[in-house]
């Protein structure tokens, strides 16, 4: 592709965006709204997944060890549990590790604990069974072992929650696809106006021997610019709002761990830009298919 052609494409695209100011504005607005909703759902579903993963991990047996046991006795206990029939995996979690996890979840709220040996937690075992159905049986057996203080395990409620969340996820996905298609057709319509307004120009271009892609590029670039401008506001807005939400949740919903903004916002912004440009580019290709037939 020649550089002077690229300059020409961008000039044409920008001219047309300015010339159709209101329609351009409307397309950008539609993409903005779509991607804002999309982004919110994306963050929501990532967090739902995160929380359910967290809950899933909790669907195992946690056996707390009496705090007066020696290391050797604890090891004895571990061997006994692992030799049980239906147990698949046993993991020892020291009380220091447990405190560290808690501090990660609670942040500043847990500060102060752990200093000068102040750790109110117990050592524990996390036990996985091969089949979730075996959990109650295994839990009961472990509880009878000497040295075990208490046993916790998840219940049916958790399983029902999983299937419910799965249904929600599919509904959200369908909704998101619907929104993206709507935005694409709106962009296609905006570009169609440009294409219509310039039908004569396109025809002349064809008659003097412009290639199809030479004719297409300005419109495709116009669509991509509209799409990425539409992605910009949601990207900035969601970055800000999610940061606020995480801060708020840390204080008010400390039992509910949200995904760290640093690890999720980068991919989210990339995804929004990708979707925005794809919607714009495809939309404009869609709108000019008819015009290239001569």
């Amino acid at each position, binding site marked *: 592709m020649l550089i002077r052609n690229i300059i020409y494409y961008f000039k044409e695209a920008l001219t047309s965006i300015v010339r159709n100011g209101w329609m351009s504005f409307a397309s950008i607005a539609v993409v903005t709204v779509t991607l804002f909703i999309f982004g919110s759902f994306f963050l929501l579903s990532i967090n739902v997944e995160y929380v359910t993963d967290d809950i899933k991990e909790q669907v195992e047996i946690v056996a707390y060890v009496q705090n007066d046991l020696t290391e050797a006795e604890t090891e004895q206990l571990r061997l006994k549990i692992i030799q049980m029939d239906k147990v698949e995996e046993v993991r020892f979690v020291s009380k220091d590790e447990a405190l560290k996890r808690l501090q990660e979840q609670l942040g500043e709220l847990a500060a102060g604990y752990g200093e000068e040996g102040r750790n109110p937690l117990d050592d524990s075992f996390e036990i996985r069974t091969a089949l979730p159905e075996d959990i109650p049986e295994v839990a009961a057996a472990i509880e009878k072992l000497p040295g075990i203080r208490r046993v916790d395990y998840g219940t049916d409620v958790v399983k029902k929650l999983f299937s419910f969340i799965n249904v929600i996820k599919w509904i959200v996905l369908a909704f998101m696809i619907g929104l993206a298609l709507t935005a694409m057709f709106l962009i296609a319509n905006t570009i169609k106006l440009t294409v219509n307004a310039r039908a004569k120009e396109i025809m002349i271009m064809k008659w003097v*021997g*412009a290639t199809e892609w030479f004719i297409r590029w300005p419109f495709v670039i116009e669509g991509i610019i509209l799409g990425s401008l539409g992605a910009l506001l949601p990207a900035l807005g969601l970055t800000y709002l999610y940061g606020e939400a995480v801060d708020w949740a840390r204080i008010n919903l400390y039992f509910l761990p949200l995904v760290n903004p640093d690890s999720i916002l980068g991919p989210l912004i990339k995804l929004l830009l990708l979707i925005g440009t794809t919607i714009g580019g495809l939309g404009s290709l869609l709108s000019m298919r008819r015009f290239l037939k001569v």
Partner: protein
Amino acid sequence: MIEVQHVSMVYPNGVGALKDINLSIEQGEFVFIVGSSGAGKSTLIRLIGREFLPTSGRIRVFGKDITKLKRREVPLLRRNIGVVFQDFRLLENRTVFENVAFAMQVVGARPREIRRRVPEALEMVGLVEKAKMKPQELSGGEQQRVCLARAIINQPSLIIADEPTGNLDPKTSMGIMDLLKTINIRGTTVLMATHDREIVDLMKKRVIMLEKGKIVRDEQRGVYNRDAH
């Protein structure tokens, strides 16, 4: 240069259809295609410009069978054909200079080349002084001159013109014909559809007459209607 072999074109309503057309045009010829409206003149011209495909038959332009061109080869064919329209088809929001330059831009010409060649073309059609004007500030004849300048700017070896004088008065028409003659003398083949009797009789060039989609007459140094003489 142009070989039309057994070309037929069928339209659902029958108007402008062609039936088994055969003709051959040599490099450097000036050819009129005449006939009443609906006889198929425009169809023939547009087939040669590969605007659409014939129902049957073969059309060879510059030695290539254009009915077998791939879509992406069509632009390359068109770069070697200059087109003049009855309604000029100029871009209103661009100046005369820009309208002519546009044809060079879209085929990727260098800006320096554009700045050099556009004034030359405008000079040839006598519009150098009006280079900065918009088409709507020009008379019909002047607009057609811009269209001509645009048609020749990429130095095509063939000019096809569909009723180029159809919207012009006789005196202005003669000016356009003089230009086409000059272009032809410089070696470009000119193929022009018209039903302007006066022009055809004055030019004394080859005349191909169509009637109801068939060639009824094809003669060198012809006139529009033999019976009238």
